[in-house]
């Protein structure tokens, strides 16, 4: 793999895709030209197995969802296979209750490259609550029928953002273990490569349902694995902030110490295992509370919180969505947060200092990082 010290911030917005380039000092950034102009881009992600490959979940208001790929860090893009778009004339399949009206694919939410030893697998999460796997880097897609036609599916309903499957996590030790997060349904784990799925929401509260701890129905917003311990996960749920140390068998609420622990997004840096960054939002207004931008760091070893920004740093009320925070792989970690009003905040030193990029993006849906390659 060629050595490349460029670090790239991949930004999916309400009006297209942007790639922002800098170097490992993370002080100066160059915003590239917009791609997919005018389309809602819910997720942009680099494939670390193939440097230069970037995937975008593009949702055109007019022309529908499209998986797009660049093989040159975003200089050019091409539409590749999109699920429910079979090569043959057939327009099947249609998911959901067979007795109901036919379903169309609404939006693409999350693209997850496979493990390093599995060079061609991709996963894709979509609305309405669908999971797909591609064996050929997105040329074709196989529906994961065991989840897409889950026997309890008739009880699943969409959240405010739709019936989105937005989180896909792979166990780096075992290609057969994967986790998914579905809005207004919760998280599931498969230990057999997607053949069967177990709900994993024990301990997660549902303040919007009459039952306090149902098996499913939790509105998970985002989940991330700890960098050093693949059995540990940090979860931002509609019902608060949680940690699990046992492959999501049970969850412990950690956010109560913050008062209101609503939010949409969480990240955990590779260089600092046991840490997680949450963007706490006011549960009713859905913007940062107390009149300023804020990020909180959870230390899982000491079980304590640290507020990384003060009221004078960036006054205002900022919304941050479920793919809105990312960390890089450097030490100290860079933290990157995109807002619904188009600000992109960067900390090059694990939250010690922050800067606001001098560029107004359209409302930001997603932020992810393409890390430098080692050479």
């Amino acid at each position, binding site marked *: 793999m060629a050595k490349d010290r460029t670090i790239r911030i991949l930004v999916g917005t309400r009006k297209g895709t942007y790639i922002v380039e800098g170097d490992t000092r993370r002080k100066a950034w160059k915003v590239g030209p917009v791609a997919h102009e005018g389309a809602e881009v819910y997720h942009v992600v680099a494939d670390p197995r193939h440097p230069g490959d970037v995937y975008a979940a593009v949702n055109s*208001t*007019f*022309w529908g969802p499209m998986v797009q790929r660049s093989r040159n860090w975003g200089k050019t893009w091409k*539409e590749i296979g999109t699920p*429910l*778009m079979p090569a043959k004339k057939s327009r099947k399949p249609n998911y959901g209750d067979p007795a109901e009206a036919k379903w*169309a694919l609404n939006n693409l939410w999350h693209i997850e490259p496979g493990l390093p030893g599995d060079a061609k697998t991709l996963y894709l999460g979509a609305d309405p609550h669908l999971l797909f796997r591609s064996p050929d880097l997105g040329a074709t897609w196989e529906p994961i029928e065991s989840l897409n036609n889950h026997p309890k599916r008739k009880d699943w309903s969409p959240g405010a953002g739709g019936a989105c499957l937005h989180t896909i996590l792979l166990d780096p030790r075992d290609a057969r273990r994967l986790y998914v997060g579905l809005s207004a349904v919760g998280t599931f784990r498969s230990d057999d490569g997607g053949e069967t799925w177990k709900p994993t929401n024990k301990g997660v509260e549902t303040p919007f349902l009459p039952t306090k701890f149902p098996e499913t129905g939790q509105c998970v917003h985002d989940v991330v694995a700890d960098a050093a311990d693949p059995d540990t996960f940090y979860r931002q749920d509609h019902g608060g902030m949680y940690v699990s140390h046992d492959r999501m068998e049970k969850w412990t609420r950690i956010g109560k110490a913050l008062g209101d622990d609503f939010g949409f997004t969480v990240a955990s840096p590779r260089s600092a295992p046991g840490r997680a960054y949450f963007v706490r939002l006011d549960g009713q207004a859905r913007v940062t509370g107390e009149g300023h931008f804020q990020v909180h760091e959870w230390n899982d070893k000491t079980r304590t919180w640290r507020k990384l920004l003060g009221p004078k740093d960036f006054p205002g009320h900022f919304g941050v969505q479920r793919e809105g925070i990312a960390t890089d792989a450097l030490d100290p970690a860079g933290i990157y947060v995109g807002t619904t009003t188009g600000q992109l905040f960067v900390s090059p030193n694990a939250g010690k200092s922050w800067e606001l990029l001098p560029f107004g993006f359209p409302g930001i849906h997603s932020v992810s990082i393409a890390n430098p390659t080692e050479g």
Partner: protein
Amino acid sequence: MLEVHLDSWLREFGPRGKEQLDADSVEHLLDALEGRYPKLRFKIRDENGQLRRYVRVFVDGEDVSRTTGVATPLAGARTIDVLHSIAGG
């Protein structure tokens, strides 16, 4: 022969401007159009064959998108417009 006017925003996937096609219904017209320009598949219609929410089809100036839709017969028709609707923000 029908004259089909396509939205300029569809240039990324299909022809620029006008096309000449023969078809007896909107469905068959779109089938023929997608046959010529495969990238148009699933852009105008979803995978159930229905017009996408923010696509409008006009037959001789009449919007059929929310009435007879893809089943609209084209006997005697002369011009078809395929346009995006007012949406977004």
